[in-house]
């Protein structure tokens, strides 16, 4: 019984907290930053209030009975065991209450599903374990991976303020614009969720599903993948920077400039030391999650690269594995995710790191040639 009172007290306190201290959200949904999120927020509060009311009435009656109708205070048992009127009443009343809840809920459902008339459209792709963003109107594309260093995760360094909720390249959107999201996945199921924006949608390989949000405040909003997607499911956060229209324009220009210089890299020839240095970064961002920073993989799950037949065999075969992946395993095809220069760099790094001392180097042109071959072969295979 003590527990009951504690519980009711806690629930009341929780309710009080969200009413009085509007900034303190530890007991309720995150502070909404979009019209849908705030509708959901209020819908949830309304339902909680109704539940709390029912709880107090029903368990008030039960605890009254537990205290008064006990043998130790000499209460004699009555013998009634049915009463049709009462039973009909307590079937009908909940039904009516539910109808009262269903109407506002249905309105929010319809508002959520209405993805028409967007100001801009962003395609989001889930990968094991990062997010890819394609701005369909602006032609900007990039990947967004966890920025928290391994040392913090392994408790070797002090954890930063946004531990596990920080990325190298956040998604950027202008404030007050209706953003339509086309969400899909490349390998397994993922789910894209930013609580404050009220948008959550499963990312399903082979299917594109849509959702939308309209951020009404400038700020940084953080979320995570919420559908189990394997080992690093907990390490693929989402960060959305909501900025002013002018800042957004500037950001788009900057991204376009960066894309142009990356394209220029594909035409260059690098020396081995440059490739290894660049490859180490690419490896850390794309490969280390499975094959580990020491190249040893995880026995039984992910093969080692250090000393492997692929990394110490012919260089073209090595590039092809990285480009096309290994179908039927967790090894993804990186051809679409990485530039020629990045693939050349990471292959070179893998062939010259740890126990691998091949001493050779792959060049972007070599990757481009193999990429052409793979694309030519693909239609024939179908």
């Amino acid at each position, binding site marked *: 019984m003590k527990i009951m009172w504690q519980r009711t007290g806690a629930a009341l306190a929780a309710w009080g907290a969200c009413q009085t201290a509007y900034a303190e959200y530890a007991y309720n949904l*995150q502070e909404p930053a979009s019209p849908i999120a705030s509708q959901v927020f209020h819908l949830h509060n309304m339902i909680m209030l109704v539940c709390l009311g029912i709880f107090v009435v029903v368990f008030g009656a039960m605890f009254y009975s537990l205290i008064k*109708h006990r043998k130790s205070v000499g209460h004699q048992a009555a013998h*009634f065991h049915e009463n049709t009127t009462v039973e009909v009443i307590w079937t009908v009343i909940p039904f009516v209450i*539910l109808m009262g809840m269903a109407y506002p809920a249905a309105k929010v459902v319809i508002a959520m599903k209405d993805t028409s008339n967007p100001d801009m459209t962003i395609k989001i792709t889930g990968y094991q374990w990062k997010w890819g963003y394609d701005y369909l109107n602006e032609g900007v594309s990039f990947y967004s991976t966890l920025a928290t260093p391994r040392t913090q995760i392994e*408790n070797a360094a002090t954890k930063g303020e946004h531990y*596990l909720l920080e990325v190298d390249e956040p998604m950027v959107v202008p404030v007050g614009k209706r953003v339509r999201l086309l969400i899909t996945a490349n390998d397994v199921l993922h789910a894209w969720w930013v609580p404050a924006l009220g948008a959550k949608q499963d990312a399903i390989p082979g299917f594109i599903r849509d959702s939308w949000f309209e951020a009404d405040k400038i700020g940084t909003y953080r979320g*995570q993948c919420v*559908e189990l997607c*394997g080992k690093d499911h907990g390490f693929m956060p989402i960060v959305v920077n909501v900025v002013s229209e002018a800042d957004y324009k500037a950001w788009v220009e900057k991204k376009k400039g960066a894309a142009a210089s990356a394209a220029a890299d594909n035409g260059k020839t690098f020396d081995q030391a440059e490739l290894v240095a660049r490859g180490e970064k690419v490896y850390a961002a794309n490969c280390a999650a499975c094959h580990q920073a020491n190249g040893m993989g995880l026995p*039984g799950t992910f093969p080692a690269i250090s000393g492997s037949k692929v990394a110490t065999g012919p260089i073209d075969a090595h590039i092809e594995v990285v480009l096309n992946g290994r179908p039927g395993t967790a090894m993804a095809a990186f051809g679409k995710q990485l530039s020629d220069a990045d693939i050349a760099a990471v292959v070179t790094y893998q062939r010259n790191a740890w126990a691998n001392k091949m001493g050779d180097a792959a060049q972007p042109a070599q990757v481009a040639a193999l990429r052409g071959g793979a694309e030519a072969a693909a239609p024939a295979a179908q």
Partner: protein
Amino acid sequence: MSDVAHAHGHDEHGHHAHPTGLMRWLTTTNHKDIGTLYLIFALVMLFAAGSMALLIRAELFKPGLQLLHPDFFNQLTTMHGLIMIFGVIMPAFSGFANWQVPLMLGAPDMAFPRMNNWAFWLLPVAGILLMGSFLLPGGAVAGGWTMYPPLYIQGGISYDLTILAVHIMGLSSIMGSINIITTILNMRAPGMTLMKMPLFCWTWLITAYLLIATMPVLAGAVTMLLTDRNFGTHFFNAAGGGDPVMFQHIFWFFAHPEVYILILPAFGIVSQVIPTFARKPLFGYASMVYATASIAILSFIVWAHHMFTVGMPAAAQLFFMFSTMLIAVPTGVKVFNWVATMWRGSMTFETPMLFAIAFVCLFTIGGFSGLVLAIAPVDIQLHDTYYVVAHFHYVLVSGALFSIFAGIYYWLPKWTGHMYDETLGKWHFWLSVIGMNIVFFPMHFLGLAGMPRRIPDYALQFTEFNQIATVGAFIFGFSQLIFLAVVLKTVKGGAKATSKVWEGAEGLEWTVPSPAPYHTFETAPVVK
């Protein structure tokens, strides 16, 4: 007795020597033996899967990775779920059904005693396959108990073994269900009409119907996973023209009724316990039966509420939202009936009653969070967060598991002939109920704040509630050792139990001596 001794003297037909020791348990066809086996199996598995939960909570005590590799963490969450559902709750309820259904109906045994034996002995085989997969290269299944493709397609050999284990457990459930249905319908004593049956029998009858309707769906779903993995089919592979979301539809078409398979027998047990200690007949017996049946029927049209975030059309979301909310009506009727049963009774608070009262309260909290999750827009915010974890642990721990504790304390004196230790029982109750709330209540807040489920590491703002939950988990986990001690102590000895055991007990099981003799009711009792 002298007859027996005399008969032994000139026994020419000694060809039916009855086995002893291990062989006796392997070959037994007695419903009481098999009930005991089910319950022992569930207890062992409870400690196995409970230890996994403690490992999970230990890892989540602090942000950062301390104890477990993320892949092993996923194996633990997956196996904890699979074993708790298929290895603890379901076998425990089967154990109760085996012991109690024949006793309650005045039947001599189950309708198919030999099939009953097979149904049980398949379970340890499946259990060994599941637990053994931890030792295989790549470890146990790590794709979540829901086994969603394409993640499930990526796994190693243990994923195939788990499918085999699911098949074996499914076969066991089907054999058990056929036995229970035929026993309840065909083996009733004269005068024991359906509407006179104890509610526990009703809830199990409906549960068995649900099992028979849905088990082929599960078997088909996991077989299609198996052929997708190994034989090049593309049922769930978009690249081959399949649809990964269809697996979720098929799976939840099975698994939502499964959720009620895990809770209806709990309703039955609580409906036996509360009238006994309120010394007053169950209020609204007929409406309880109808409510149980409506919940079972509704369970077939609500499955997609587990999938509001896959991107269904608005019409589908609305349909599944309304049908799900409707379940609150019969569930509410049940809660009101239990409260009305206590109303103006003459209550005492022995351990079974305490667990039953905690069940009514805490299950209702799980029901309310279920109602919150039924509202599609709110569910979309909370789906796959700790709010959902809190919700289903309130219905499965303080619901199903607490009803199992209530049932064990209630019937253990009948089974063993000894009273359990009331003081230890009360300690077990209070520590469990306090521990359970400390673990799971903060999880609501974690989910609201945005912590996803199934993650081995979390952002700093989730730290405090996770630490509280971990402390609670250890209190709850270790207090189950008291339960083990109580059970062992009661089996060994203790005050002799009378045949009625409880002052307010009603029903045929209380007319046979305690402990219940090996064979009961071969000649039918007459039910007025």
